[in-house]
């Protein structure tokens, strides 16, 4: 029992002293000049460096990453550099694993992630004068800008742009589309041109096939794809300060209602994150389960591969199948939205009644972990992958839309569509700040809630604009509390 007493006293002491200890003086990091910050990149590449590179799943599965690593190792053979696949989950947390040395050295991430790390000091500011950034639009570079020690520093080397586009199967278009589904006679099928026609077509396909097939198939809970409907009708994420959250701005409820209607046409199987990956099968199987999807352009490579495989299984020769797959998978800009937000009605004048939507976008970049032992070799790798030729290689292998405008022009197709949308200001770059992490879960809950409302809920709740507005207000409240908790915790 004496031991028990001693332990008790020790614990009480621990706590009381602990509380006092909170007052002890602490020293911050101080400030540094640009030269000091960049000093670690000066000089020859380290000998025998091993750098772990974290790339996305697609680059690993297609074997592209390995080829790049091999090419890089060969070029820097004299330094005996060994770049390897980090072999970690794509979303491994640098904040948690980096300080202990278990994170990657070079990482490929979207701007919200990479800049979250930048704010926490987990990734290095890059010496932009050594990188090829002249052809990257300033709007894209800005996404990676963060003011540190009074300096404007860039924390990522932008490689690919992300936003939403619509991909459809040309061979699944109805036979009579030119007479029935091209009211404005511009040669573009209406169901991939306007949301109203897509809605009508999706409902029709689902009805005719008794729910087995889909017109549009996409995840209704993907925050990234669906926030565009709110943004198109006047919403914004953060205003001048982070206290100003504009996702419930006036008009956003119209967008939310549009989304709710759309959910009704898609059905409950789309209320799942899995729909995003599922679509790779649906859009390309022989049954033609889905006619089109809205998503990021880098899925195209996977779609093409799958469709080729399907065609081969149906008896085509390999080359013929490849050509047919390329021909039949068409990417266009996301469908135009009705100005009044009502997608259930039939349009009479497409030009007059609709507008090009705003979609959320992001920029993927390579960054270097602060915890790397080999900053010079890591920088060499970043430089290597951002060379013009290697960027083109990446775009061709993975279907990524390059951040460089000259390359985008050269590649044409999707790249041109997206670049065009960027320059027209139709892409809302997701905010590069730590606080962005707090918007995703509440947004996902909102989309889940509203999509469920028009599909599987027995008694729908969100039947009026006021109620939808209420849902948006609640979204903002939720984001606020998440931010508040993040600060006090």
């Amino acid at each position: 029992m004496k031991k028990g007493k001693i332990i008790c006293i020790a614990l009480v002491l621990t706590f009381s002293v602990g509380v006092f200890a909170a007052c002890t003086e602490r020293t911050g990091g101080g400030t540094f000049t640009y030269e000091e910050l960049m000093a670690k990149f000066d000089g020859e590449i380290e000998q025998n460096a091993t750098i772990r590179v974290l790339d996305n799943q697609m680059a690993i599965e297609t074997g592209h990453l390995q080829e790049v690593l091999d090419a890089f190792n060969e070029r820097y053979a004299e330094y005996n550099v060994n770049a390897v696949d980090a072999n970690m989950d794509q979303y491994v947390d640098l904040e948690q694993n980096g300080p202990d040395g278990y994170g990657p050295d070079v990482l490929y991430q979207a701007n919200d992630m990479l800049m979250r790390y930048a704010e926490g000091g987990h990734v290095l500011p890059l010496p932009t004068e050594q990188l090829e950034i002249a052809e990257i639009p300033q709007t894209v570079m800005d996404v990676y800008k963060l003011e540190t020690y009074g300096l404007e520093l860039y924390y990522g080397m932008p490689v690919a742009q992300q936003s939403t586009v619509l991909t459809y199967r040309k061979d699944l278009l109805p036979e009579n589309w030119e007479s029935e589904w091209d009211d404005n006679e511009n040669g573009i099928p209406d169901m991939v041109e306007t949301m109203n026609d897509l809605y009508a077509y999706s409902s029709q396909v689902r009805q005719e096939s008794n729910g087995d097939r889909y017109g549009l198939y996409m995840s209704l809970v993907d925050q990234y794809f669906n926030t565009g409907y709110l943004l198109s009708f006047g919403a914004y994420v953060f205003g001048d300060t982070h206290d100003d959250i504009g996702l419930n701005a006036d008009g956003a409820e119209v967008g939310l209602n549009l989304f709710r209607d759309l959910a009704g046409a898609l059905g409950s199987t789309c209320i799942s994150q899995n729909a995003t990956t599922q679509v790779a099968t649906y859009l390309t199987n022989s049954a033609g389960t889905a006619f089109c999807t809205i998503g990021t352009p880098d899925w195209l490579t996977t779609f093409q591969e799958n469709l080729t495989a399907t065609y081969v299984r149906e008896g085509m020769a390999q080359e013929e199948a490849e050509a047919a797959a390329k021909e039949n998978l068409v990417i266009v800009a996301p469908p135009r939205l009705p100005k009044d937000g009502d997608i259930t009605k039939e349009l009479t004048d497409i030009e007059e009644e609709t507008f090009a939507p705003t979609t959320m976008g992001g920029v993927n970049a390579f960054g270097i972990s602060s915890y790397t032992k080999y900053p010079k070799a890591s920088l060499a790798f970043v430089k290597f992958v951002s060379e013009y030729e290697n960027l083109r290689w990446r775009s061709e292998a993975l279907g990524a839309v390059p951040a460089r405008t000259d390359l985008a022009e050269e590649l044409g197709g999707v790249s041109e569509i997206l670049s065009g949308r960027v320059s027209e200001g139709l892409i809302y770059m997701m905010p590069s700040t730590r606080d962005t992490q707090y918007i995703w879960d509440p947004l996902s809950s909102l989309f889940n809630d509203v999509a469920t409302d028009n599909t599987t809920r027995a008694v729908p709740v969100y039947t009026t604009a006021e109620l939808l507005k209420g849902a948006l207000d609640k979204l903002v409240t939720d984001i606020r509390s998440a931010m508040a908790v993040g600060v006090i915790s």
Partner: protein
Amino acid sequence: MDAVKKKPRGQGVPYQVKLSCVFMGLGQLFCRQFTKGALLMLLEVGFIFFLVFAGVDNIIGLFTLGTTEGVPIMGIEGDNSISMLAWGITTVFLVLLFALAYYANIKDVIYTAREMAKGNRVRNFFESCQTLLNKKFYFLTLTLPLVFVCIFNIMPIVFTALVAFTNYGGEIVPPKLVSWTGFQSFRVIFTMSEYIGTMGKILAWNILWAVGSTFLVYFGGLGLALLYNSACLKFKRFWRVFPMFAYAIPSFITLTGFYFMFCDSGPIVGLLKDWGWVSESFTIISYDSKWSLRLLGFFCCAWIGVPSVMFLATGILSNVNKEMYEAARLDGANGFQQFLYLTLPFVLFATTPVIISTFINQFNNFSIFYFLRPETVYAPGYFNANSSDLLINWMYNLTVENRLYSLGSALSLILFAFMAVFSLIAYVTSPAYKKEDTYR
């Protein structure tokens, strides 16, 4: 240390004891136990070295949690509050352990001195070792497990408990310095409407779940055991293979399998719709499904848990005194009466600990709803949780998904206190515990 004052009756404290109080092993040396004395002295010297080179810093670190913030982008390491916390706790453990060793050292020398006073021969080192092997066999077998348990079970609990009193988590993660904030996390949990509301709802559901699933699993298993025990059933061994499946398959497979079976695109929902038994909007696992998913949870829990109780009950039933039943039958008791008055009391009595442990396991059943609702979505009215989540799932969401470590830790402390009180009362009042020693 207190033991020193307890003087051997009728005489002063032997000088060896005083010496051992001053420095470990010194007394033993003067009792001519040279090897033991030297080893003990070496231990103390080692401990002093440890204190000087690391221990003191570690303890100071435990209080300050770091004073210089690191700048990773400049490669300046700074203090890592979290590892300082871990090493601080370790050092406190070591100090306590050393105090224990010191206490043992003094007790040992008192014993030896007394023996010497009686004129007995002093045991040499070899003999001491033999005593250890023989009389204190338990000391040998328990040391390694105790060390393991200290490092991997007690340390994490102390760590979690202390984290609850810091501001670790959210924005405050290394390289930022963590500080002690007293009861702030608890204050947040009990004052922020999001938390207290969510906690109330989840706690109510959690208790309902624990009671319901324990009942289901326990009586399901008992019923099944009785069924398989029926005299008229042939090939018992064969039939028992089927529940064995459920018992053997890892639960992550079972639960993911059930998720696939019952999800919106799965066969069950599809077939029910095809047969026209349910409306087109029917769903079992959806974003805000509450009772459908909860009921599915009960079903899966029974599927997984019933077989283990069944096998247990089968073993117990084979010990039942057959003559009692014969007597009861002769007295005219029917099958149901036999069950109610003979089987049930016997089995219930024999398996009280099983009921308690089932209850605890079900209360903390993390995997059921983790696998049945694989996507992290939060329902309206819940903060970072969904309507089917148990407290443990909520805690997971807070700490792993949202990295709110201090809040999660505070929550686990609350949960722990709740469970500890409950199960200790249940266990101590259980007949099995009371009768432990009367059995032999």
